[in-house]
């Protein structure tokens, strides 16, 4: 079973290998003559005036939390999609749909609620 993931592994190796080569080769072969202008973040842009790592407003965090919630919801639908036909054949169409329908109903109401409450507005 695990051998069917071999292409995935090869892809992983190729991808990291390509990235490594693309970064490594110029470092080895290319000439490196740095001066002040070349090391600026933007060679002909606005001069940076503060550290890029500033504190972000909590608003972003709300979005991130909501993202995780619906991420988790999706992961529950994944096995359902895989066995939905099987559930229909083994039990009944109702049994395949109603429990997931109830699950989704609760979360869709949650989605409408947060929408209506303005949690998705970006001022």
């Amino acid at each position, binding site marked *: 079973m695990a051998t069917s993931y071999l292409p995935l592994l090869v892809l992983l190796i190729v991808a990291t290998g390509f990235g490594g080569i693309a970064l490594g080769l110029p470092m080895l072969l290319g000439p490196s003559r740095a001066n002040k202008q070349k090391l600026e973040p933007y060679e002909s842009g606005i001069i940076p005036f503060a550290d890029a790592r500033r504190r972000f407003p909590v608003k972003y965090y709300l979005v991130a939390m909501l993202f995780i919630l619906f991420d988790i919801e999706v992961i529950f639908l994944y096995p359902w999609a895989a066995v939905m036909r099987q559930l229909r054949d083994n*039990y009944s169409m109702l*049994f395949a749909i109603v429990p997931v329908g109830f699950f989704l109903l*609760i979360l869709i*109401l949650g989605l409408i*609620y947060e929408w209506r*409450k303005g949690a998705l507005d970006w001022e």
Partner: protein
Amino acid sequence: MSANLNVSVILPELILVGFAMLVMILDMVGTDERPTGRTLLPWLALVGVAVAGLVCIQQYSQPAASFQGGAVSDHFALGLRLIILVATGLGILLSASYIPRINKQVGEYYALLLLCAAGMTMMGAATDLMVVFVALEILSLALYILCGLNRESPRSSEASMKYFLLGAFSSAFFVYGAALIYGAAGSTQYDEIAKALAGGNSNLALLYPGIALLLVGFGFKVSLVPFHMWTPDVYQGAPTPVTAFMSVGTKAAAFAAFIRVLVIALPAQQPSWGWALAIMAILTMTLGNLAALRQSSLKRMLAYSSIAHAGYVLVGIVAGTSEGADAALFYLFTYAFMNIGAFAVVIMLEKANEGDALQNRAAGIGQRWPWLALAMAIFMFSLSGVPPLAGFFGKLFVFKAAVDGGWAWLAVIGMLNSAIGAYYYLRVTVSMYFEKPGAETLSQRSTWSALSIGLAVAAIFTVLIGILPGMWTALFTGGLTGLGG
């Protein structure tokens, strides 16, 4: 495998979740600028609790199991549901005028309260460690949030943060324990665990650490010593209606799940967990009572007193008998009225926007506010176990169960502890009636109708259960029928 989906087993939970969704829908009708219909939210939530309660009573004589042994609705589950619904109903009455003052988002508040109640009642019905875990997470997560409701108050945020960190930690203990028991027994379903362990071919190196971790996880939730450290800070920092609700609700729910795991899934291991529980019961009662003696804040005093009461309940379940389970549940039923009542008085005594009341706020209120003082006196006498109030019979049955189970000495320690406890409860009563009103004494009282109703209901039931205990014990007998899945 045929799937058993007898939804009526979890009908009360479904009703609570349904009403939580109705609360959200009603809340959506208004906007923040024009909060149409939001004053109706507490009453809608209250109707939900009442409907769920009626369904419970209607289902009382038809125990059933469902969801492949995941949940049952035996007398024990229904009894716990009644306790939780009482706590929720009183909690809503206490919140009605309190919550809008500290947070405008009342829609979220009542929805969370109902969902939390659904998680709590599920704890009593669950007969599978998986179900218990998810229910435990529902109620815990909701309570972490409710504790931090007052975002203007650093104390409230601190309570929420502290409760969350320690609570998440304890959930990890619980789930690790559940995993080890699954490893030892090959199932998470209680009857199957008991069957597998009775065979005697289980891995003890997995089983005993598993039980120990489960004890730690539940110990955190019901604040048993030595896992009680969070209780005073969280109870003090949380908004008082939330404290009242959680002090009863969490305790009842976690104890119910605890009793069911121990008595149904792990009866063969009683000689080992019995001793662990007995030691924890002694520590919990003694430390809770001794610490409560030294408190000047009423909320902290009640927090330590709630620790002590967890110890009394534990005395009942040490023997692992069905009688003990009934006694513990009855104790929690009486505790719901007297403890929430006491918190209702604290709300009355609170200064606006302070979130807490010192004991000197109550000094001399016997002359100024005779009804309020009378109610507080009833709750204090009942909490200390003076007959013929509800608290006396709660203690009586719990200690009787311990004696019948062969733990007479533990019951004696429990009685000695009641004597210590009486001191600080009576001190409040004495200061209400025999001290002159001081500068700090409550001087004006706003007319909060819902709160007054909650207070009156709690006081009346505390007396009523005390006068007619037989009528109520009938609700809590023969609880654990242990229906097979």
